[in-house]
């Protein structure tokens, strides 16, 4: 079965790149640009096995708010979250980690295929 990944990223060109690469790597991909959209996707589409999350998003809420909501909901609590952001203040990273995200990446320092490989490996292990 193909894994479905939710990509939460506000920057369109980046989002498209992520999507294309994930599709090429055999993922089903859905996207969102705000926390609201993301929650909507989770609610409406369902079957999301992993989330790709940026910190700064459109709208007032950011990635941290989203993760906080996820972890408070029993339905989505177990979905692994990979934060891929350029904002690397230690406080934020700590907050994310304490909330239970799987891994934190600095965008510009990683290749797409590296992150995707990590996600795949993570999912394989889980299964």
């Amino acid at each position: 079965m193909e894994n479905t990944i939710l990509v939460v990223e506000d920057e369109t060109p980046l989002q498209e790149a992520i999507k294309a690469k994930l599709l090429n790597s055999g993922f089903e991909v859905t996207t969102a640009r705000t926390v609201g959209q993301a929650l909507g996707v989770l609610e409406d589409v369902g079957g999301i096995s992993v989330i790709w999350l940026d910190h700064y998003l459109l709208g007032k809420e950011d990635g941290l708010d989203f993760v906080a909501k996820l972890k408070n909901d029993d339905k989505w609590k177990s979905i692994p979250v990979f934060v891929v952001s350029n904002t690397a203040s230690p406080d934020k990273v700590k907050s994310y980690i304490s909330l239970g995200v799987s891994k934190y990446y600095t965008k510009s320092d990683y290749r797409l295929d590296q992150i995707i490989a990590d996600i795949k490996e993570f999912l394989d292990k889980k299964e």
Partner: protein
Amino acid sequence: MDLFVYNIIYFLSIVLAVGLLFFLLRRKSQSKIVKELVWLNFGAIVWFAVDFLTLAEKFSNEVHIIIWKLGFVLSFSLVVLLLRFIVIFTQTNILNWKKYTGLLIYFVLVFFTLFTDQVIAGVRPLLFAGDSNYVIGEYFVVMAVVMSIALFLSFYYILKKLVSIQDQTQKIKFRRLAIALAVLFIFVFITNLAFPMFGIPIPRLAALGIIFLLIFFTYSIFKSDTFGMNFRGFKIRTKIILPIILTAIIVLSAASAYSYFFTVKILKQEAISHLETTAQLVHRHIENILSNKKEKLEIAATHSDLSQEELQTILNINEGFYELFVLDSNGIIISSSDISHIGLDQSNDDYFVNGKNASYIKPAYFSDTSKKESIAIATPHAGGVLVARVGLEFFNSIVSDRTGLGETGEILLAYKDKNGDAVFFTERKFEEVKKEEDSKDFQTLPMDEALLKKEKVFLSLHDYRHVGVISVTRYIDEVEIGIVVKIDEQEAFAPATGLLNFFIIRFFIVLFLFFIITYIISGKISKPIILLQKGIGIIKKGNLDHKVGTQKKDEVGELSRAFDEMTTSIKQSQLEVETKVQEQTKEISKNAQNLANQQKAILNILEDVEEEKIKVSHERDKIDAILYSIGDAVFVVNKNLRITMINQIAVDMAACSIDQCINQSYYEHLKFVHEKDGKLNDKFIKDAIKTGEVQEMANHTLLISSDGKKTPVADSAAPLKDKDGKVIGCVVVFRDVTHERQIDQAKTEFVSLASHQLRTPLSTINWYAEMLLAGDAGKITEDQKKYLDEIYKGNQRMVGLVNALLNVSRLELGTFTIEPEMANIIDIAKSVLNEQKQNIKKKQLVINETYDVTLPKMSIDTKLTRIIFQNLISNAVKYTPEKGKISIKIEKLNEDVLIQVADTGMGIPKLQQKKIFEKLFRADNVRETDTEGTGLGLYIIKSILDNTGGKVWFESVEKKGTSFSATIPLSGMQSKKGTKELS
């Protein structure tokens, strides 16, 4: 080789050995080895001298054999002595006689050689240099074998030692020993023992062997600093005597030699001219006799008929003729004084053939007819020939007259017989000595030269007795007779020999006189000096009353007197010094009194000062005025933390009045708290009073005013001390840092924003390029791939640059965090190295890791530590050419951990080394070869280490490599709160 050459060799050997002996004896330190060398050398000299004198035929055979044996024993004593230095005695171990085994062998050999004929049977006469000079005995072989085994063993042990030994100086020593033994073996053993054993007649080469040995000794002693400056100096007396005696020896020898050789030359000339005159006389005499006899015969031939009686009559009146006979025209004897010869046919004889027409003399020959050595004279007579035979013994009367020829001089006459041998027909003075068959070296006899028609002077030819003679030769063609007039060289030169003896005696007498005179004179010169020397010795011991007291009027006398005067003046000045010391002691005690007085005066002044103090208090008002006008908030507390002084700005910030504050505890009005938790934070004031040192206020301190207003403040507390350095209070200065905080905040936000905003587009480029390269948008051509690669790489560099810039701004803003945790520094190093694995592999670099595994875990910020390693290692990898070497070392260094990364890369140019830690600086050589660096890495390392108590430095040689060293305190890094981590 000529005997002469041997004499030269021996002579040189003696000179060499004597020279060596001189140096050995003049050595200051007479160590055991030196003493042994002295004896060895002395032995060698004796041996050389013996052979030298033997060659010069100064010994009779019996004496010779004894001395020669002694010399032989000495020669192998030499060998054994040398062996003593070496190992043979310690190596051979029979019956536990370690030391004595060799000596025993030696004494047995010496005994047999000296006291029996078993080893050396005899010594041969030394006529020729090539002759074997001793006859070997029955046990000679045994001795040779024993000696050669000893030698061989020594040689073997030395070689073994030489191969196994490690120490260089020892090696040199053993190499020298090995060479010595090899020389010994080849020249002494082979020439002196092996050759005679097999009857090979060249033992004289032993002399050469000894020379080599001596040269080696010289070298060896030279090497052990024998000829160094380590000599005893000559005494003055010797210095005076030696050159005079040496000069005398040279002059006397030259004069004596000249006189001698001049005399010999004159004597030789005289002898030769005398011999020549005699020879000429003999020559003429014989010619006269012959012409006289011929005339007589011609007169007799005028008689028509010569009967036997008539021939007899003629014979009787002519001395010398012993037979007369007449030949008819057919050559038949028809008449003769000897009747028995009548009828003999002489037609083939020379005198008939040549005498028919004119008078003829037949040269000396042996007459078969009359069995006599004769000359025949023939003259024509009545169609036939008249012949007279003259007996050669007739000439005895000529040679018997040896007037003026001395003891050994004589005249010899001879003719050559049919075999070409000389036939002496006159009487000789001495018995002939037969030639020895095997002696081919005999010189040609003077007579042989004469019969070869040579008319010459010969020096040093041997005569029929094998005695050297001076000879003059003549030849009478008509009768083919050779004349030799000769005299023994010894007799001819006897006056010269006498003269030589006289010269030698004179030489020694004069030398002795010279010695006596110079000895006395030098004594006169050296005696006062010795007296002076003794005097100095006495005075040196402290007796200044001693006087050398020389009355002489020469330089030494003057010197002595000057010395005496000097002693007197020293004594005088000593007295003066004593007086002066006493005076100065007085002066000093006087000064001490003055000083005490001065002290009192100072105390008085101090009292005055106290009064002044009161005046000073008025000055305080002025200080207050100054204090109030300072821009920063200032207050002063006493030891009890009560405010003694406070300025307006301080009370404004605290929202109270000056009067309220004075004499109150400061914390009543001025509350310093931590920004975070609101807890009291006035430790810095108490610390300043406690420690007596300036204390900084902690970061993020707030001042809470009496009306509850919070103001962020910063600054310090400084202790106030009295004149004794005792802390009596503290000055606290602080200022409102609200504005500074705002600026900081703005900066931090800018960095944060920049980091996000700059990185987002970079990520976009990054990922799209990555996807294009991965073929996610369809296949791409090689060129496209190449260009995309460049885009990707360029972008990566941009990312790196942005990261580095962000780090730099955080470091500069001080907004970065230091979060120490217990970690193993070696693990961090290994992990960073692992990241670089691909680059290392690509460049085939050799990595050398040295870690002190006993290092404990340390409290360090792993991110910062990682940044340090990343920069150091990536630099090393980047700037080291292919197949280069990188060494990474982590170890304890005093109270720190030392990290060292050394490479064999391009290095840092000397002139730019100072700038290497500056921001954005890149050395010329790396800028030329690599465009990727940011010039920030080392700056970041230095900033981090400056902030964490570490240090960084380096050593570098351009084109050779660079070694970076960094230290981090073992105690770890201090925690620091900031808004940003470095990435």
